[in-house]
């Protein structure tokens, strides 16, 4: 057992910390600051910040140096995740591009794709969307029906995507498109990289239960995509998608723990302030959640250990997803119980603005749906990890 990081990793932590201290304005860390901004204003600030961060050498921590990354260890990435959350750095504008697309391109992209995609991603100049889900294809992704028909050197794409995060602010979208007429299920799909700023692509915001519009729907109406913008083999998009989704596995639990633990402490403070901290039921609720959060931290350390040893985590990612999403959701239900009959008010009588907390509580309803719903993760765990029959 050795829970420490290497000296080089700790040095990196210090370097990152002081950079973050110097570059995150106090105002940004004020509770509710980001929620109070217009979407586009928030987007602009975050984009600029990420460019500066990249210029300072704090982007692509684990990416190879040849792609402009830092060539860091998994431990450095974990430290990066922890420190940025701790410093209350803004959330990335490009989660899908950075987490999923970039490593996939590095693994199987053509030289031209590597050149064109990775550099701009590092500086967040191009914001990527993930166009997988369709109105008729959610958990059953292979039921998708968006079509791409070959026309010379292009595919002509028609169809609709939905729940697309960043649909309105996105520049490009990696999509799954049926490029083989009459094909079924996993066959005949290609992963196309489509420019969203072209005639034939329309993005419309969808309003979420939180009131925000982080996601939207995307319509393809004779949108044109050069065949060279297919990632992976034509017709082999399912395999590309599986590779892409496998990059979800990693040490991401560390940043989630750091963030949720802070939220836990904030919620405990609300309980104390409202005189609810000595209610044995509330105490039991909070302690149950804290137990799960601590388990998340330890599980993340275990995952990090395995990653550092070069082990393939396989379907264990489903376990991580279940652990964090269910614990997070439970945390915000406890928050509601602490507020009791005031749970829906915008502010407490002393003026404390509850809306930033409510935003988290609403968001918690989504985390067990996206990225594979909890039900789907349980199926995966039961069938692939425990070996129960399909």
């Amino acid at each position, binding site marked *: 057992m050795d*829970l420490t990081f290497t000296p080089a990793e700790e040095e990196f932590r210090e370097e990152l910390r002081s950079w973050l201290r110097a570059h995150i304005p106090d105002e940004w860390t004020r509770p509710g600051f980001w929620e109070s901004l217009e979407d586009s204003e928030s987007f602009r600030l975050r984009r600029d910040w990420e460019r500066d961060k990249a210029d300072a050498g704090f982007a692509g921590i684990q990416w190879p140096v040849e792609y402009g990354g830092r060539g860091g260890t998994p431990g450095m990435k974990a430290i990066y995740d922890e420190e940025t959350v701790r410093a209350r750095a803004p959330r990335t504008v490009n989660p899908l591009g950075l987490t999923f697309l970039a490593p996939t391109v590095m693994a199987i992209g053509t030289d031209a794709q590597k050149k064109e995609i990775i550099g701009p991603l590092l500086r967040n100049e191009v914001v990527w969307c993930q166009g997988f889900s369709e109105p008729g294809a959610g958990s059953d992704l292979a039921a998708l029906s968006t079509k791409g028909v070959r026309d010379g050197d292009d595919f002509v794409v028609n169809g609709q995507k939905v729940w697309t995060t960043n649909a309105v602010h996105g520049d490009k979208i990696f999509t799954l498109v049926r490029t083989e007429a009459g094909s079924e299920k996993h066959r005949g799909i290609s992963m196309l990289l489509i420019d969203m700023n072209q005639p034939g692509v329309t993005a419309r915001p969808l309003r979420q239960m939180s009131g925000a519009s982080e996601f939207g729907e995307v319509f393809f109406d004779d949108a044109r995509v050069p065949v060279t913008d297919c990632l992976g083999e034509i017709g082999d998009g399912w395999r590309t998608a599986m590779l892409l989704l496998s990059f979800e596995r990693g040490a991401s639990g560390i940043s989630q723990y750091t963030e949720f633990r802070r939220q836990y402490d904030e919620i405990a403070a609300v309980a104390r302030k409202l005189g609810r901290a000595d209610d044995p039921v509330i*105490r039991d609720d*909070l302690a149950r959640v804290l*137990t799960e959060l601590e*388990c998340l931290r330890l599980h993340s350390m275990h995952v990090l*250990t395995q990653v550092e040893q070069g082990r393939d985590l396989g379907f264990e990612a489903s376990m991580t997803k279940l652990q964090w999403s269910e614990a997070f959701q439970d945390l915000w239900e406890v928050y509601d119980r602490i507020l009791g009959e005031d749970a829906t008010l915008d502010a407490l009588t002393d003026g404390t603005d509850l809306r930033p907390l409510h935003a988290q509580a609403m968001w918690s309803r989504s985390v067990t749906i996206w990225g594979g719903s909890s039900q789907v993760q*349980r*199926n995966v765990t*039961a069938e692939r990890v425990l070996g129960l029959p399909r």
Partner: protein
Amino acid sequence: MFFALTSDQQEFGAAVRDYLAQRFDLAAVRTVVENPSDDGNPASLWRAAGEQGWTAVTVDEDHDGLGLGLVEAQVIARALGAGVAPGPWRGTVLAADAIRLAGSDEQKAAWLPKLAAGEAVGAFTTRGSAASGLPVVEYGALADVVVAPAEDGLPGLALVTGATASPVGSYDGTTRLASCSGGTVETLPGTTVELQRLLTDRATVLVAADLVGIAREALTRTVAYDRERTQFGVPVGSFQALKHALADLHVGVTMAEHAALYAAHAVDTGLADAELAVAVAKAKSSDVALQATAAMIQFHGGIGYTWEHEAHFFYKRAKRLAGQYGDVAVSRERIASLTVGA
């Protein structure tokens, strides 16, 4: 960063599990359960505990021990829990810990080599006191030496030898309990309040690890059964109601494994969050062991409710241990006091 068992530690656990699988399986456990008037410590198993170093694990090398930590001890505890193995292993290790950490040189010389070799049986309790009597002691009738609070409500630990023991009944047939009174009482001169806390934490971690072993084995056996058992023409394990429950249990048991491992390390090395880690480990392992053993009965159907089936060994042992050193509610209250405040 290395948060996992080393291969040596894994082998330690595997050796205990292999021994139990080959030489002391559930049929052997049944013999113990069905003969409650026996001392509950089969000679062959106890000899193995001594010979294979299970009892020597945390005793220092100067006193013929292996000088290993609580991390290794919890590996053994987990394996013994998985085998629902009877015998005074935990009490012996904890008594040796107390003597090692708080005993005089004479006490150490007198007891540690014998406890390490399994030649003497130790017991450990935090209930009652040497002065007023010890109401429930695991293997109290078998123990050559019992470590217990010296006086009610006051700090201090005592060694009790030659006490009068009378059996205390329990539906957990994998363990024998007795109340103890009288005997010769010696104080452990090095006892401090912190040390007493530390020993209770060590005991709690070993109980948590036993619960984790129980939970994992209950789940594994249930999954194996539900893959084979058919109803409606298909294996019952293909029904989503079972799958989802078993998947949740797998996540829960895995988290409890991490929690017990971390708690052992935190206590061993005196990490700042050791107290929280112990409470988390106990809360999680108690919770998940109760769930997994109840699920073992439920997902075996009628057969799971029979005396012939082994599910009740796991269920009943989980029931007893889940309440020890703080049940789920008590452990959570400790977590709340550490993170929410009074």
